[in-house]
């Protein structure tokens, strides 16, 4: 009897559970799973949205490997990602470490450090066009001041990608706050113990901070790579891929194929290629991190 009642309550709870998460399930089917399947199907078709779609077999995928711009855009994106993400994380961690002290005006500094991250990309674009302007910009004025040669910044293929890396460092509030959250979760007893054992600041950082923070580092690294791989707005607004395709990043190329040339099938194939590459890097990071990431009091359930 009791069992029966329990199971009825259980069933009611389960039904409510599904109802509560229903919005997400519907959203998942409509905006994630459905489109992903559709995207696979589309990548085997040819469709300009005007005429009917036609079956294209694997031709989109064979074209992929002959398209020089696919390779160029992937190279640009990888270059950008693998230089900007480590620098961003190092800077964000440094800023979080500065904030994670018993200091005055802590919340004011935190707010100021975060400000660039709420700057809309369009406003940021106006700003960076001025800063990096070779004739009148702030960046070259500073270089002149210290006697270094001036640079063409966004307007030269050799400095255009480094310019984007520089810009990415201005706006790392999110990883910073996440690092800060991680740092605040480290029990101070660990630092006290290390200090009693005679560990200096650097040794405490190496032996306590880094291991305790490793899950957060992995989280920021994974999301950072995924985010950087999808760089779009800045490149679209500032350089539109130029000069000489040096800032043609993958998503910018995808945008052109899909929404300027309306090659929906081919664009889907490119989207899947980018997706698989990002997935590969994500899995690699988890794999490499497996033995290096320390999870405190691992509890499952």
């Amino acid at each position, binding site marked *: 009897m009791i069992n029966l009642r329990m199971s009825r309550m259980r069933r009611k709870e389960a039904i409510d559970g599904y109802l*509560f*998460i229903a*919005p997400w399930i519907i959203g998942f089917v409509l*905006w994630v799973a459905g489109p*992903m399947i559709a995207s696979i199907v589309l990548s085997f078709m040819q469709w300009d949205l005007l005429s009917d779609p036609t079956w294209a077999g694997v031709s989109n995928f064979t074209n992929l490997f002959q398209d020089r711009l696919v390779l160029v855009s992937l190279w640009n994106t990888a270059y950008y990602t693998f230089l900007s993400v480590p620098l961003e994380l190092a800077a964000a961690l440094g800023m979080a470490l500065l904030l994670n002290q018993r200091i005055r005006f802590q919340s004011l500094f935190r707010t100021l450090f975060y400000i660039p991250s709420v700057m*809309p990309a369009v406003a940021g674009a*106006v700003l960076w066009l001025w800063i990096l302007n070779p004739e009148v910009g702030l960046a070259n004025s500073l270089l002149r001041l210290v006697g270094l040669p001036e640079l063409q910044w966004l307007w030269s293929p050799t400095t255009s990608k480094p310019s984007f890396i520089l810009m990415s460092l201005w706006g790392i509030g999110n990883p910073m706050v996440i690092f800060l959250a991680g740092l605040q979760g480290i029990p101070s007893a660990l630092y006290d113990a290390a200090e009693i054992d005679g560990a200096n600041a650097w040794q405490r950082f190496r032996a306590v901070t880094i291991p305790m923070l490793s899950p957060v580092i992995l989280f920021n690294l994974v999301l950072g790579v995924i985010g950087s791989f999808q760089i779009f707005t800045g490149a*679209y607004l500032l350089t539109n891929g130029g000069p000489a395709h040096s800032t043609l990043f993958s998503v910018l190329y995808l945008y052109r194929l*899909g929404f300027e040339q309306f090659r929906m099938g081919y*664009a889907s194939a490119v989207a899947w290629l980018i997706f698989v590459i990002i997935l590969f890097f994500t899995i690699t990071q988890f794999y490499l991190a497996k033995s290096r990431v320390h999870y405190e009091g691992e509890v499952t359930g």
Partner: protein
Amino acid sequence: MSTDELTLSPPLDQEAIQLLGRRTRRRPAGFYIRRTFQYLVMVVISVISMIPLVWMVSTSLKEQGQVFAYPPVWIPDPVMWSNYAEALARAPLLRWLMNTSIITFLAIVGNVITSSMVAYGFARLRFPGRNFLFMLLLSTMMLPQIVTLIPRFILFKSLGWLDTFLPLVVPPFFGGGPFNIFLVRQFYLTIPTDLDDAARIDGASNWAIWWLILAPLSKPVLIAIGIFSFVYHWNDFLHPLIFLFSEDMKTLALGLRAFIDPLDASWQISMAASMFLLVPVIIIFFLGQRYFIEGVTVTGLKG
């Protein structure tokens, strides 16, 4: 924060006096040198963060001739409020401001309601497949959005939703974003279930417990995700670019693109126009930064 409390409140008992004594103990000179250096670095970072903002505001009020003056002019003289009139004359900025406000408002409502609802399901109710579904939800956080962009465009096109606000405001009502759900769930987990149990004994349904008990208690995290979605939707460029075409439907972020022209020297006008986008998001951030940042910090990130 706690240092202030300690020094401001009068020492009431022996323990406090001892603590105070410990804190005012002479520190080695190295400590003060390190601290001074630390403040110096922090001030430099703050300046790097703020200077561009200050420069944009100042430029938006400058005369054409002062924009590229060297050395730079920081306080505009005369103050050209007419730059704003000029910006308004060049583009329907107020219309775009209204569009952006409508879209952002609806998206926030959708995100906050559905993510708190879904989070309740994951935090409080047991059902078969819950852990799997939650893992699936977390893994969508790592899904690059671009892979679904083209099919979503085609879907909205076939629904006749292109060039309306629907592609931008309907999705938040279905799911509310995996990171938001995750944050609210983490917050719910910190609230003891005693309250739920008491209400349940009194005959409250799960809907009542969610809406009347947990949602009001989780105001800080709901405000945090509200601000997250404000910043995201207010600043979003890619989605309006793909889904909105006509001049009257544009958002500010999208419309402002017309003001980005390296060949046009009237930067003061571009800056004035940018202010319509920039000022609200900065104000909202300053008002809510406590929730915004602490929503992440306090909730913690442990699964």
